[in-house]
């Protein structure tokens, strides 16, 4: 059983298009996250949701819109894609994010390539 799954695994698209990435976790966690990993492997948090409520928004352009229909799902919609959006996007989940010790479980990543 996959704990944190993402679809699609690969996404190749043209500049200006709109695309979505989906994430699901079956761990019963309350908190979910989106991270962006750039070409130099640097990982940075983008958003976090706790029980469908946005709790962290790290000054990401408003072309990026997360949506959490329920606490097991966190989707990422990107409008008007730009070349600089090319990256690997990771979804993660953890138990309620108020404890600094909570391990985050990561999905396999979605490699987005914008042409």
């Amino acid at each position, binding site marked *: 059983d996959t704990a944190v799954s993402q679809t699609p695994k690969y996404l190749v698209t043209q500049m200006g298009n709109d695309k979505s990435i989906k994430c699901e976790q079956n761990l019963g966690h309350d908190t979910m996250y989106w991270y962006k990993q750039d070409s130099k492997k640097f990982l940075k948090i983008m958003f976090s949701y706790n029980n469908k409520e946005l709790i962290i928004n790290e000054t990401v352009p408003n072309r990026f819109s997360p949506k959490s229909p329920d606490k097991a799902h966190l989707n990422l919609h990107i409008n008007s894609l730009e070349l600089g959006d090319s990256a690997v996007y990771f979804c993660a989940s953890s138990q309620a994010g108020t404890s*600094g010790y909570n391990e985050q479980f990561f999905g*396999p990543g979605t490699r987005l390539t914008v042409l």
Partner: protein
Amino acid sequence: AQSVTQLDSHVSVSEGTPVLLRCNYSSSYSPSLFWYVQHPNKGLQLLLKYTSAATLVKGINGFEAEFKKSETSFHLTKPSAHMSDAAEYFCVVSARGGGGYNKLIFGAGTRLAVHP
């Protein structure tokens, strides 16, 4: 503000020799620290975490890390490298985000190469 610095971007070792991946942290309060590993084209997996219960933390696959407050370090070690250890390793600190929730701050990563 919380941050981590991984002192080496690349480390190369021979199979069977010790591994040392260095990490220094900066934190205005008692930190929560983690090491994650990322194998090529894979997601991230937790190796170990420091929870203030013990300064020497043992993780999976024979890895361990020692929290040294006086040196603000959390170096990752393994006595004997295996070919399967070749991967990217991230030192991570937990920081306070909005509304009292925590977020992970990642170091830049250290690529470990293991050669026969």
